[in-house]
């Protein structure tokens, strides 16, 4: 079953085309990695799917519905969450703002605990380190039992131990809770380890499909330029 359908998507900011004629589908329960060099339009693609970027042409459907109709079934962790650090709001209050009324408040504790962040519950959000904030944002993205998670470079700022926890969590959510995960990454390693679908971008679609099949040396060179590549030894954990 297709959960995300992108057809002939073109995105432009002030007549400057950032993404051109992109088409692909994402099947339910996939872990889809969006890769590409800096400035290739990865974040823009995610934002366009979420209705946060100006769509010049094309159509996007989530669960066969418009973006706005599907908002209650998705959640998003941005690459950089910028906010006023002096805003007097605790982590718990911040989480509660996104908690849907049908959900109970102890869900906040549960999700913070899953990300090993329960101890910062009563701290001011602005006092957290970059890595702590990222974990809180991931915990928030899990609050309302989303069916699709959009994560834009979710582990930026998280230390190595946290990275491992994060990928274990991602795998657990995907395999046990059947959640589709769409994540932007600049690390090819992540793609091979975790994704079963890849979307390669450089303002246009370079390739998409199962990583082992579509990520050929030629495609990677097309994506990142003529760099020396070592053959990746794929190893399932």
């Amino acid at each position, binding site marked *: 079953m297709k959960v995300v359908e992108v057809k002939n998507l073109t995105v432009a900011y002030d007549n400057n085309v950032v993404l051109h004629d992109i088409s692909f589908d994402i099947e339910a329960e996939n872990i889809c990695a969006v890769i590409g060099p800096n400035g290739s339009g990865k974040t823009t693609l995610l934002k366009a799917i*979420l*209705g*946060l970027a100006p769509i010049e042409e094309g159509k996007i459907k989530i669960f066969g519905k418009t973006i*706005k109709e599907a*908002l*209650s079934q*998705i*959640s*998003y962790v*941005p690459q950089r*969450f910028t*906010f*006023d650090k*002096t*805003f*007097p*709001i*605790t982590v718990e*209050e*911040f989480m*509660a*703002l*996104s908690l849907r009324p049908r959900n109970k408040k102890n869900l906040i504790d549960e999700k913070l605990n899953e990300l090993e962040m329960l101890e910062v519950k009563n701290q*001011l959000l602005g006092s957290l380190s970059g890595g702590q904030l990222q974990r809180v944002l991931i915990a928030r993205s899990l609050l309302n039992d989303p069916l699709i998670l959009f994560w834009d470079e979710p582990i930026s700022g998280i230390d190595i131990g946290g990275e491992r926890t994060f990928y274990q969590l991602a795998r657990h959510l995907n395999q046990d809770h059947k959640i589709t995960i769409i994540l932007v990454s600049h690390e090819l390693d992540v793609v091979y380890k975790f994704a079963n679908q890849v979307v390669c971008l450089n303002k246009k679609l370079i390739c998409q499909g199962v990583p082992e099949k579509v990520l050929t040396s030629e495609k990677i060179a097309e994506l990142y330029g003529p760099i020396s590549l070592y053959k990746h030894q794929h190893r399932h954990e």
Partner: protein
Amino acid sequence: MNNLMLDLLQFPFMQRALLAGLFLALLLALLGIFVILRKMSFWGDGLAHASLAGIALALLLAINPLFLAIVIAVIFALLVYYLERKTTLSSDAIIGVLFTSLMALGIILLSFKAGYQPDLISYLFGNILAIKNSDLYLMAVCTAVILYFLLKYRKQLTLITFDKESAYLAGINVNLFDLIFYIFLAVAVVLGVKILGIVLVSALLIIPASIAKLVAKSFRLINILSVIFAEIIVSLGLVISYYFNLPSGAVIILTGTLIFLVMVLAKHLKLMPE
């Protein structure tokens, strides 16, 4: 102190002033939190000054100035909302253009009315004697409606203030909430013009919320503290102005400033718990 209060409350004008002040303090304290956190402090000044056009027109037509001032302030809010979305100009530039224009219009309208204008002076600098029962009823109704909105949609308003992108993704109609917030802010600021005056009313929007932000360690606390400080500032200011026979609006604001300075100093000297 009790005797002083009883003495003061025997006058109906003082009862009305105190009641109106308490309504206003509650309203502006809660709206002020969103105003300072959204960096909209210039809004209060802009709205109050723009309302001069409504007051002037009402004085010319000999109708209730408060009502017409609210109408003009709401039109001002709608224009800012529209221009923010249709131009690349920043809010403060738009407010700067609009409020000076409406004030200029007010001055021209007033030039058609000959002689000394005591009503105008009371609107410019505030006058507790000018508060009528009809003003009090209007204040009570407006306070109830705006308060209901602020409490019922507290979560949505806070999320929009904190991060508009998160608010949109939570399914909140950000534009609609912004529009309603702007309109209610316009109404609340103009309600304060009678007590505090066009020149000073925005201070009650900014000072209590700013004092609260200095010390609050949560969003819940900034709400509670802002209201407490606003109520103390208004009541204390009114009492002081009565006993020393000083202009009430100015005394209320300076009372707030004094508390603000004490809190800044206490924070600087680390006299408050971290």
